[in-house]
């Protein structure tokens, strides 16, 4: 949808459209990378630089996030021949990509560096599984963890489940509605040659898969994979010299939280998530609202996480998420397709960055599907969304990414297609 004409792009407070994501890169999404996170990370960083059309030595800022399961920028930078003027490795998962993009803008605006690469490198299947199996699950439990892990309340699914269950109770949300999140994202993944799972699933497939932690079936949970992803952020005026149409950053909210982060269940309705607070920062910063968004990346660690965020960011009314995700709106060809790469449920697990990468490609009108490539190197999109076909959203101008750490913390970003 075209933007409102009265947009003031000079507003320094908001920095709208002043910075852009100019390069994106990833490794293949696999289970069993046979590589260190250092090797994966440098691979993704080189891909992102090549995609931007810059030398890796032009990167002078680096940000990363991990849960002590990765390699820091200090090793990555040398391996790509970059001397850094700024770097920071932080702890975190699903709410990081958008928040770190905000930090990247801040440090460039402050004059600390000129071109920031953000990466996430993880062997999420073969080394440290986020689900918490293996050595990580058998760790001694002490102090504040006695109030959760001592009760067998540890993995992401286990920690979030009371929120999901209460939503079904409060609003009558049905399992078959929630399952539609997986169904739709799997349709999109079937048109993504990179996706780890390309199979299309049905509601019955989801509901007949085994229960992991009620209300979550196996197919309500995302895939765990080994991979690295990277994006390159720089000033929009520099972006003009680069290879692709830039994805201009309109507005960001970073790690916005509910009260009582020590145990958020103590405050407010427990089926309210961080988006309830984040929306009031995101939309004014971006100068648009949910109705202006053409494509969404709604963090899908679980089917429920997508749905809950769509409600609290205002894509539908609170409690109507089940209806929204099963209405067809979220499908390719629908009004507001989401997770067009297949997301975490199907493409691969990268703690949110692959959904930002996908929206950058969508905004370039160059989603890497199976459509034929023309003499100019660009795909000739057919907009035939049947299995194995196109996954480019037609005429997409503005996208939103809704990142999720947990019910209590989220980050989000709005991007638009550059000129």
């Amino acid at each position, binding site marked *: 949808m075209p933007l409102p004409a009265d947009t003031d792009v000079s507003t320094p407070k908001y920095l709208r459209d002043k910075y852009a994501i100019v390069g994106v890169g990833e490794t293949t999404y696999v289970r069993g990378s046979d590589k260190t996170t250092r090797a994966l990370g440098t691979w993704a960083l080189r891909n992102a630089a090549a995609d931007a059309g810059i030398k890796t030595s032009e990167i002078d800022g680096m940000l990363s996030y991990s849960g002590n399961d990765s390699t820091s920028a200090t090793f990555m930078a040398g391996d790509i021949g970059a001397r850094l003027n700024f770097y920071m490795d932080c702890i975190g998962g699903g709410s990081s990509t958008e928040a770190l993009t905000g930090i990247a803008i801040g440090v460039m605006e402050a004059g600390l560096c000129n071109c920031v690469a953000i990466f996430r490198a993880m062997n999420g299947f073969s080394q440290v599984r986020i*689900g*918490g*199996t293996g050595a990580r*699950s*058998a760790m*001694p*439990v*002490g*102090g*504040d963890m*006695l*109030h*959760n*892990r*001592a*009760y*067998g*309340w*540890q*993995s992401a699914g*286990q920690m979030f*489940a*009371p*929120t999901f*269950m*209460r939503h*079904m*109770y409060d609003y009558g949300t*049905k*399992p078959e509605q929630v399952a539609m999140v997986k169904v739709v994202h799997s349709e999109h993944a079937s048109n993504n040659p990179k996706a780890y799972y390309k199979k299309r699933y049905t509601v019955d497939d989801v*509901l007949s898969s*085994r*229960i*992991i*932690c*009620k*209300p979550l079936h196996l197919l309500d949970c995302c895939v765990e994979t080994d991979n690295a992803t990277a994006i390159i952020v720089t000033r929009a005026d520099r972006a003009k010299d680069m290879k692709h149409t830039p994805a201009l950053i309109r507005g960001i909210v970073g790690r916005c939280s509910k*009260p*009582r982060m*020590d*145990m958020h*269940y*103590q*405050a*407010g*309705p*427990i089926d309210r998530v961080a988006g309830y607070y984040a929306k009031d920062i995101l939309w004014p910063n971006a100068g648009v609202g949910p109705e202006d968004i053409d494509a969404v990346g709604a963090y899908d660690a679980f089917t429920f996480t997508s749905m809950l965020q769509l409600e609290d960011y205002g894509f539908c009314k609170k409690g109507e998420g089940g209806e929204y995700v099963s209405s067809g709106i979220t499908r390719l060809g629908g009004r507001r397709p989401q997770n067009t790469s297949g997301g975490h449920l199907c493409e691969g697990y990268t703690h949110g960055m692959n959904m930002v990468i996908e929206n950058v490609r969508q905004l370039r009108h160059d989603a890497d599907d199976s459509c034929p490539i023309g003499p100019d190197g660009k795909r000739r999109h057919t907009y035939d969304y049947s299995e194995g076909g196109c996954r480019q959203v037609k005429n997409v101008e503005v996208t939103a990414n809704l990142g999720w750490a947990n019910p209590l913390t989220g980050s989000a970003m709005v991007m638009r297609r550059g000129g």
Partner: protein
Amino acid sequence: MSIQGNYLGMSLSIDDLDGENVAYFAHCARHDFHLQKCDDCGLLRYPPTTGCPWCSSPRATWTAVEGKGEVHSYEEVHHAIQPAFKAHTPYMVLLVDLDTQKGQPSEHEALRVVGNLTTPDGALAPRDAVRQVGIGTRVRMTFSDVTEGLSLPQWTVDTDAKQPEKPWRYPQE
């Protein structure tokens, strides 16, 4: 010396420096549930913290709280992650609204105390018992003893209370 114990084969510990948790679990070890009550705003809080989440005061007094309430939400774990729980599936994690201070400081709040569904003597509940419990079930607190100075508060069905005709459960059994 920190407090260390073994629970279902899992190592549990509290550091001596961690005064709030030492005090909380010492009361639990006496099967006597206490929470911090803010000396300034008068509100109770859970779990232990170093300051009042409602008014930020660092001053609080441990106060006896009745261990009775109603299941606000739950989950049923069928695929355990931690080795300690693998022999006990399906097990239930309950989030219980205490009767004390329910609806304060706003209508959306309550002291929501976590625990597993257990038998009256604090053992993880068997499968048949799990199927009887849902949102709305009335429960009372019991304890799983771990070691001196450390017991875990748990929840068991309150057989003396008026129970809902049918507690709300996830539609797919």
